[in-house]
């Protein structure tokens, strides 16, 4: 039997009366880089937020690190979050703290290490992302790519079991993107960290992902290896991988009226 860190069983989530995700079942194995991919609005970020317990499912069962996520978990969720790292799209660093203090923050919160030890650990993490020299800088003095690397150092400060990456490559220049790709792969291989990344950057993501979960209209259309993903003949996957303007995701947003009817209404 395969051990799983995260397990979804028939999970559905809806806003108002509209299903964002419907009947999702999946497992995330330890030590694997899993990419959650799909077009904008396909439910990727919702799936990520359900995985970490920031949203509660309407139906189904979610298990994270052997703990069932449901409305009864309450403040116990904070205990679980201490065992994970999370990299937001916007880095989300604390503006009033220096880079070093940002990385020290989770260590200070969850350990009883003396301050000098906390600094040593934080400097080692900054060294791992190549930004030891920026330790005394404030976040606004860094570029967007550097901020994301600092956020990555903070996410791994406590040597988490899983790291979640929400659109890590969005808005990055090719060099920064390359650095992030390398770091994610390196942390996975060297530290054995399970990585779950939500992204729609096909090239970068498939270069490092072991497994791909592809979402379309709130349902899983593909769940398999990255190798099989690029060869998949599902029209939705083909449109996504080949960046086609029309396909299952229509170029024209569906409308209840024809263009003629709409122009008459305007008149």
């Amino acid at each position, binding site marked *: 039997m395969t051990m799983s860190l995260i397990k979804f069983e028939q999970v559905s989530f809806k806003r108002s009366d509209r299903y964002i995700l419907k009947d999702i079942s999946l497992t995330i194995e330890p030590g694997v880089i899993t990419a959650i991919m799909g077009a904008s609005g396909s439910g990727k970020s919702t799936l990520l937020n359900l995985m*970490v317990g*920031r949203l509660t499912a309407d139906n189904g069962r979610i298990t994270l690190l052997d703990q069932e996520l449901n409305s009864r978990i309450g*403040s116990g969720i*904070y*205990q679980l*979050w*201490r065992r*994970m*790292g*999370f990299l*937001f799209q*916007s880095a*989300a*660093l*604390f*503006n009033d703290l220096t880079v070093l203090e940002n990385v020290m*923050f*989770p260590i200070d*919160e*969850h350990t009883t290490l003396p301050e000098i030890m906390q600094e040593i650990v934080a400097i080692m993490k900054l060294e791992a992302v190549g930004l030891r020299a920026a330790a005394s800088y404030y976040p606004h003095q860094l570029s967007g790519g550097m901020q994301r690397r600092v956020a990555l150092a*903070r996410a791994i400060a406590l040597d988490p079991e899983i790291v979640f990456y929400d659109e890590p490559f969005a808005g990055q220049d090719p060099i920064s993107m390359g650095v992030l790709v390398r770091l994610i792969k390196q942390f996975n291989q060297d530290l054995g960290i399970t990585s779950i990344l939500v992204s729609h950057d096909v090239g970068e993501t498939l270069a490092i992902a072991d497994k791909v979960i592809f979402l379309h209209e709130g349902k899983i259309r593909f769940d398999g290896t990255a190798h099989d993903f690029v060869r998949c003949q599902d029209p939705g996957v083909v449109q996504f991988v080949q960046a086609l303007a029309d396909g299952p995701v229509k170029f024209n947003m569906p409308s209840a009226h024809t263009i003629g009817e709409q122009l008459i209404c305007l008149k």
Partner: protein
Amino acid sequence: MSEMIDKIECLGRKTHETVWRIGHFVCFFYQSLMYHDKKFFSQFKYSLVQQGTHSLGLIVLSAAFIGMVLALQGYVILARFGAEQALGQLIAMSMIRELGPVMCSLFFIGRSCSTITAELALMRITMQIDSLEVIGVNPLARLIAPRLWAVLFVAPLLISVFISVAILGGSLVSISVLGVDYGAFWSNIATTVHFYDDIVKSLLKGLIFFFNAVAVAIYQGYFVAPQVEAVAKATTRTVVLSSALTLALDYILTSFTVN
């Protein structure tokens, strides 16, 4: 007929939304007051400075001028009846019973509450609050509880300073400029002001205004919409809503006190 049903449906939806929001507001602050974490005291000290020290300059300056203007205006009216010597009584009673808590909380809203809203809203929009959560820190315990507890200490102090400075400002103009007798000015105050009926009730009233203002500021900032103009809107809403609530609460509390 269908238009009528639509209106009733809309009214029902609005009522449901308002009741939900009030319930959410109360639960949010009840939960926040229950939490505290290991950084509580450092955050509490930060909140004392943010709410107290940062407002102090404005409070002192405005109180001095309000007291001085009140002396000038009061003198003109009292002089018509030959009651100039009661100027101290007029200034003290109006400041303690009414102007002190109300004006002080309005200045506090403009200076500190707007800062609280802007700070929390920016933290929300830049996802710093989300960061705290996923690091395993409860934002209610770290950000909200210290601010709520701090206002309970700041409010009586600021109101006391406001009233004292206003009376001192009034006394300066009354005695030095208008020629009111020094002894009459202060003895009139001493005989008419009662500790419980006037001072304690004034501080309690002010405490309610301040707590309400900070609660509105926190709520507006913490639950800000993720939009570009949201911080400006939330800050404006804080000032308008908490000022209006202060004045409405003042009427309600005064009517109870008078009765």
